[in-house]
């Protein structure tokens, strides 16, 4: 497994955090996806320039008390799955253009 992999949100998707779930619409065919909590964390951190290993260490291992090697393997599998659906890019080098989009503003909910 390549520890220096990078993930970036695909440029043509729409996305919003709704009720604690990240909703994503694929630009290719308008399919809708909903990500669970950990997948949402990866998605939001996918700035194209931070290595996946670093994202996992910072955002997953720290908060979920999971061993780094397992977490990275799971994260890469998840990233590959999202990449297959065309909503995430997985690359061996940084994808700086992806930084155009900052983190997705979370939806505030009604009281």
């Amino acid at each position, binding site marked *: 497994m390549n520890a220096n992999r990078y993930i970036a949100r695909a440029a043509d998707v729409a996305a919003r955090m709704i009720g604690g779930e990240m909703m994503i*619409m694929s630009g290719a065919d*308008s399919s809708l996806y909903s990500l669970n909590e950990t997948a949402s964390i990866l998605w939001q951190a996918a700035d194209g320039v931070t290595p996946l290993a670093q994202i996992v260490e910072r955002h997953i291992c720290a908060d979920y008390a999971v061993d780094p090697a397992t977490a990275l393997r799971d994260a890469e599998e998840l990233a590959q799955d999202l990449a297959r659906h065309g909503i995430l890019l997985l690359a061996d080098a940084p994808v700086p253009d992806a930084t*155009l989009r900052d983190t997705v503003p979370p939806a505030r909910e009604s009281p």
Partner: protein
Amino acid sequence: MREMGAKALKLGIPLGVQLDLTYRCNERCVHCYLDHDDHGEMTTAEIRDLLDQLAAAGVFFLILSGGEIFLRKDLFEIVEYARKLMFSVKLKTNAVMIRKAKAKRIAALGVESVQISVYSHRAEVHDAITKLPGSFRRTIEGARLLKSNGVRVSFANVLMKHNAGDYPEVQALAAELGVGYNVDATITPMMDGDRSILDLNIAPAALEQVFHNSTLVGNAEEFCAPPSGPLAQADALDTLPCSAGHTACYVSPYGDVYPCVQFPLPSGNVRKTRFLDIWQHSPQLKEVRAITMADLQGCSSCTHGSSCSRCPGLAYMEGNMRGPSTQDCEKSFARTGVPSANLLRKQAATARQEPASGAGTPSPLSAKHTVIWMAAQS
């Protein structure tokens, strides 16, 4: 998608917003419901701030419409910012101003789709409706350019007297270009309540043809099935009239917020109040949200109650947002051949006012403002 809507409804999130960027237009369509003067449109900075607020409120689907949106010099700045905030962006335009560079840019911005108004396959008919010579040629060229750049395009074909018989050819043109097609027989009153443009509605016979065309309405037999009676009492208490004010709303170029583009109930202005405060606390939106089907005077006991597409906005424009919308009564009649009590009452009143207009009871389909119908409207 349904799940997403249900969740938004439960959480009180405005999932979809239509934002009109301008009422100015390069066309002067005979059926248009807008006043085209600029009464102080929001600036670029105001719109960017509003987009931030909409994203924070949870808006996912953003429709940018007008007027003609390409008359705004900052359109691409706005679309680019909206896409940076990851809205699903749909543009509504006449495409007259779209040339190669603009088509490329729209494609690069990952716009979800572009809806283009096309009235006829005949240039002279289309141009007579838009009152802009050469508009048909330019519109179709704009559509082709978008399509060739990989943008999802659909034609919105509004029907009126001028073009009532042209829709099969417009549909064929859409198929030839590989773009989507929606027919829309809805001529709505002007924003200021003027109902004179309703006279442009297509004739009853033409409308019936549209209703019975399965390529337009899906299963025509089902669509035109006899009325199945009022909604059951238990369902009527739970059923909401539509998404307006519940999971969707409309913002005008001047920052006014309404439940829907077709529901001009002033509910606040984003120049004075934060969007989320309006969405959550506006007394008008709260009132709209409080209405269930059980509260609808006339409609709750109507035989069309369970199948009617009653629009609360049109009912509001008629004077009572809890009342029937006569245009929808006409629609239900045209689908099924069964008049609602409200339609019969209106017909009787019209007959009393116009004693010289003919002998006997007029057919409900001879109503002055004939049927309104909106196809493929989700």
